[in-house]
C-alpha cells in the first residue's frame, strides 16, 4: 500500500509538469462521458419512458454505473497499457522485483486526467440522486455502497482479464472493449432494456446486472430485499480473473528487444 502511494506521487508530479495539457485532457475526459449523458437526455426529450424506467431513474442508473466504472478505471487502468509492457519485455523487470506483480502493473500508470471523468461521474451521481424519487433509508444507502464496491471490483476484474489475455496474444484485443468501455456505454440504461437474453448473459456470465439492474430495482422499491446483497456476490467474479492472471504469469515468455 505504501508502495502504491509512492507510485501515485511520482505520477502526480510528472503529470503536473504539463499543466495545460493536463487541464485539456481533463476537459476532454469530461466531454467524452458528457456526450453519453446528452445522448440519454435527448432520447428522453422524445420518449417519456423506456421499459417502465423514467428519465430520472435512468439518470440514477447512469450515474451509479459511471461512478463504478470511473473508480475501477482510475486505479486499474494500468492494465490498459499492459500490452506494451508485455510486448517490450518489460514484464521481466516486474517479475524480478520482490513485490506483487499486480501492484506494480497498477502503479505503472495512473491517469490523473481521469479526474475529468470522475468529476463527471460525481456530477451525474449527485444529480441522479437529487432528481430521483427514491425514499432513502439505511438499507438503500447500503445498497448504493455495495453497488459501488461490487462495480469497482467487477470492472477491475475485467481489466485484469484484458491484461491476462495479453500473456497469450502479446497484444491487446480490441474486442475486449465491449466489456469495458462498452459496458460503461450501455450501462447508461438498466440492462433489462436490451432484452431477456442480454439480461441472462449479464447475470450469470459477467455479472453486470448484479451491480446495476437488480440493486437498482431495489432502490426503486420494485425488487426483492435480497437484491441488496447481489453486488457483494458479484465480487466473487474477481476470483476467476485472478486465476486467469496466475495462469498467464506462468505462461509468460519474455519477448521484445
Amino acid at each position, binding site marked *: 500500500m505504501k508502495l502504491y502511494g509512492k507510485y501515485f506521487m511520482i505520477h502526480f508530479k510528472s503529470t503536473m509538469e*504539463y499543466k*495545460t*495539457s*493536463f*487541464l*485539456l*485532457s481533463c*476537459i*476532454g*475526459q469530461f*466531454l*467524452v462521458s*458528457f*456526450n*453519453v449523458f*446528452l*445522448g440519454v437526455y*435527448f*432520447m428522453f*426529450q*422524445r*420518449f*417519456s*419512458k*423506456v*421499459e417502465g424506467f423514467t428519465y430520472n431513474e435512468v439518470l440514477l442508473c447512469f450515474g451509479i454505473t459511471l461512478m463504478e466504472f470511473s473508480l475501477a478505471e482510475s486505479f486499474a487502468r494500468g492494465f490498459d497499457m499492459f500490452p506494451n509492457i508485455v510486448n517490450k519485455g518489460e514484464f521481466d523487470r516486474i517479475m524480478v522485483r520482490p513485490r506483487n506483480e499486480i501492484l506494480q502493473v497498477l502503479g505503472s500508470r495512473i491517469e490523473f*486526467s481521469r479526474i475529468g471523468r470522475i468529476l463527471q461521474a460525481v456530477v451525474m451521481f449527485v444529480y441522479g440522486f437529487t432528481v430521483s424519487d427514491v425514499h432513502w433509508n439505511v438499507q438503500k444507502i447500503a445498497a448504493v455502497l455495495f453497488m459501488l464496491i461490487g462495480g469497482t471490483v467487477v470492472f477491475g476484474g475485467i481489466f485484469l482479464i484484458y491484461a491476462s489475455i495479453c500473456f497469450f496474444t502479446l497484444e491487446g*484485443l*480490441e*474486442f475486449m*472493449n*465491449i466489456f469495458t468501455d*462498452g459496458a460503461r456505454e*450501455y450501462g447508461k*440504461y438498466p440492462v433489462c*432494456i*436490451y*432484452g431477456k437474453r*442480454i439480461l441472462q448473459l449479464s447475470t450469470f456470465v459477467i455479472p453486470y446486472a448484479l451491480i446495476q439492474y437488480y440493486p437498482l430495482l431495489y432502490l426503486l422499491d420494485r425488487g426483492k430485499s435480497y437484491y441488496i446483497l447481489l453486488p457483494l456476490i458479484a465480487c466473487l467474479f474477481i476470483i476467476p480473473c485472478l486465476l486467469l492472471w496466475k495462469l498467464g504469469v506462468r505462461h509468460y515468455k519474455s519477448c521484445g528487444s
Partner: protein
Amino acid sequence: MKKYFAFFRLRFSMGLQYRAAALAGIITQFVWGTMEILMFRAFYHADANAFPMTFQAVSSYVWMQQAFLTLFMAWMMENDIFSAIVDGNIAYELCRPIDIYNMWFSRSLATRLSKAVLRCMPILLAALFFPAPYGLMLPVSLPAFLLFFLTLFLGTGVTVAFCMLVYMACFFTISSAGVRMVAVSVVEFFSGAVIPLPFFPDKIRRIMEILPFASMQNVPLRIYSGDLTGSAMGQAVALQLFWLFALTGIGKLLNALAMKKITVQGG
C-alpha cells in the same frame, strides 16, 4: 499528384495487412451494432409514434455506421503524425520535396479506406441476414445507392480534412492529447455518432445540420436508409462539398502558418 497517390497506395496495402485486428474489430462492431439496435428497440416499444424514422431505417443506419466506422470515427487519427511533430521526426518529412498537407491527407485517407474495406463486407453480409426490422435493408433505389457511395466518399473527405486541422493544431500546442480529445467529443456528438441527428429536437437539429460535422457520417447513412430524400438531400450534398473545400482551405492555411514558425523538437 503521382507521388501522393504512391503514398496512398503504400498506406492502403499496409492497412490491409492487419487482418487479425480487423477480425477483432468486426466482432466488436457487430456486438456494438446489436446492442445499439436493442436499445432503439426498447425505445420503439415504449413509444412507436415518437420515433422520427422507421425502425428499419434506424437498423440500417446502425449497421452501415458500424460497417464503415473506420471512415468516420474521429478518434482514428494517425499517431505517427502526432509523434512526428512531438519528437522532431517531422524534420525528415520536411526535407522531402512534397507538400506535407497533401501527403498526410492521402495517408490518412488510405488508412481509413483500407480498414473499411477489410471490415465492411462481413458486417454488411451478416446484417443482411438479420430478421426483417433488425437487419440491413436493401438500398431503396439504384440512384440512391450511387448517391450513397458518392456521399460516403465526400463524408470521409470531410472527416479527414477535419482531422488535418487537429494535426495542424498540434504544431502550435505541441502536446496533442487535450485538443484531440475535445475535437473528438465534439465530432462524435454533432455528427450523429451518439444518436442519429433525426432524434434531436427540430430546432437543435436544424443548427446541427449546417455544421461541418453533419457532413460526415450523417448524410450518407441517412441517404442509404431513405430518411434523407428530395431537395433536402441536394442541399446536404452541396453542403458536404462546401465543407470539404472550406476545411481543406483552412487546413492549408494553417499548414502554411505552421511551416513559417515551425520548431523541430527532440534531440
